């Protein structure tokens, strides 16, 4: 199922004009505060009626301004995690969680409530009212409520912003599983580049109500020209490989087009596909093969593209095997090392610098 959005809407002082397709998997809506992310999500949910355009999921037309079609929200079969929780104050946490299940009857069965309660760590809260929850607890309940309604389209507006990193690390794999095991399109709003890079299949970057760039995550993230839009300091590319071995000393070996990448221990079984985000700032360049270094991952590479911004850094696109990786070095280093397109060199990548949250 693909979600396809083409809409125009005018607020006083702000115009929304976006068109993008969200294929199965997670489509990350990315953009600065006030760029129109929530407005897009609201339009998809039927809470905002755009001035013009169409919205469809697979062959279901949800909205068509010209033909005056506007499927009411409750028949759009979606789950929405709002930016501000919106729990029902008069119901207990348990009742909030179960609210959508009633209408989901008959749709493809999803996870039992217990599993999601455990995942979100809200077991002890089940009999409380939302008024007696902390900010993060509220948000976790809101996530659970949306997931339990067994949606055919999931909208998540900064669902993890209020959560600590440990909790985030627990919830993200679940969302990834949702992405991989169902063909539910997920529209995911986030400010966090690592989060987006980790889970997004597709990235839609918004700026002032318009689509700046959109496309498959791997392609968009490995392009040094896109990096500034995402925040240059968070640039990084994605490598895919196959899990080869889990060593006893806590290192996982991943086979990819350029050789073997050593990572901190992963849970995925041997043979599984794995996607790893390599942050540009974690990739060092060496002109000669380094020795006696704590880094396990040293690969011969070729410089494909150099991008010099206004800042002190240079963004280097490297080809390792058939994969693309970004490296960010200072201008001084680049000059001293005489980096140029086509040149061969070594890419040094510390194992531990592949952060847990960047693997998925």
């Amino acid at each position, binding site marked *: 199922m693909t979600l396809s959005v083409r809409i125009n809407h005018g607020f006083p002082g702000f115009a929304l004009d976006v068109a993008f397709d969200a294929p199965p998997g997670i489509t990350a809506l990315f953009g600065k505060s006030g760029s129109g992310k929530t407005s897009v999500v609201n339009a998809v949910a039927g809470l905002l009626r755009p001035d013009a355009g169409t919205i469809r999921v697979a062959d279901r037309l949800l909205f068509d301004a010209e033909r005056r079609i506007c499927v009411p*929200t409750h028949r759009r079969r979606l789950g929405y995690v709002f930016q501000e929780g919106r729990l029902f104050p008069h119901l207990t946490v348990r009742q909030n969680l179960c609210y959508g299940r009633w209408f989901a009857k008959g749709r493809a069965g999803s996870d039992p409530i217990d599993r999601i309660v455990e995942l979100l760590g809200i077991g002890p809260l089940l009999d*409380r009212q939302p008024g007696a929850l902390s900010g993060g607890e509220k948000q976790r309940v809101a996530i659970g409520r949306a997931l339990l309604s067994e949606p055919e389209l999931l909208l998540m507006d900064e669902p993890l912003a209020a959560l600590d990193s440990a909790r985030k690390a627990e919830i993200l794999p679940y969302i990834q599983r949702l992405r991989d095991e169902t063909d539910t399109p997920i529209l995911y709003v986030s400010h966090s580049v690592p989060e987006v890079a980790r889970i997004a299949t597709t990235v839609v970057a918004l700026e002032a109500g318009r689509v700046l760039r959109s496309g498959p995550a791997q392609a968009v993230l490995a392009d040094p020209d896109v990096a500034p839009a995402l925040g240059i300091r968070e640039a990084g590319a994605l490598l895919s490989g196959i899990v080869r071995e889990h060593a006893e000393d806590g290192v996982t070996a991943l086979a990819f087009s350029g050789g073997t990448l050593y990572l901190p221990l992963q849970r995925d079984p041997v043979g599984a596909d794995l996607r790893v985000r390599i942050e540009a700032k974690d990739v060092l360049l060496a002109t000669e093969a380094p020795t006696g270094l704590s880094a396990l991952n040293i690969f011969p590479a070729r410089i494909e593209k150099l991008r010099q911004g206004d800042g002190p850094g240079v963004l280097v696109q490297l080809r390792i095997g058939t994969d693309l990786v970004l490296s960010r070095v200072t201008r001084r280093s680049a000059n001293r090392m005489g980096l140029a397109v086509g040149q061969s060199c070594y890419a040094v990548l510390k194992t531990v610098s592949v952060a847990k949250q960047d693997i998925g």
Partner: protein
Amino acid sequence: MTDWLGPEAWAAVALSLQVSFWATLLSLPLGIFVAYALSRWNFPGRQLLNGLVHLPLILPPVVTGYLLLLAFGRRGPVGSFLEETFGFVLAFRWTGAALAAAVMAFPLMVRAIRLAIDAVDPKLEQAAATLGAPRAWVFATITLPLILPGILVGAILAFAKAMGEFGATITFVSNIPGQTQTVPSAIYAFLQVPGEESTALRLVLVSVAIAMAALLLSEVVSRAVARRIAGQ
């Protein structure tokens, strides 16, 4: 006790309770519906409906009673229709007293409930819709529980008003002991007779006590509900 008040007065108390109770209970669903429509829907004639609902508040009660008599009396268009079709008579029956009380109390009930509905955050109703709940279900499970304190207030206002309603009732269904003589009519009758003020006073005390008890109860219940909503 019977001695203290006299059988006629007791009958009036019993009748007033019956009249007020049914007037409140039966007009409540309509009151909620009208309040919801006025608060949430935009339809032609909204302002007209709004005005109509408030009419009994604006008109002197005698006029309302007179209009009720003209419409629902046995010779009136609605009254004769009801009698012929369903054999249901309002005029000069306690049912008519209940109708008069309900009509007089209706604006108070609707306004209270409407204020409560206005205060419900539509975002919560939207959230329920995203979870797949159809409108009626959203109303029943989200809006209704949230406005419960308002409904209670509306009901108790209506009940209190019904206990005190005089002008419209006596004009519409008269003051027939045991049938349409409510507490206010009885008080009126006693006040017409010099020397009966003390009986009138006792009746006043009884009806005040009843209404205060109802008021207190509604207060307690609506606070409890509000506390529950706030998360204890």
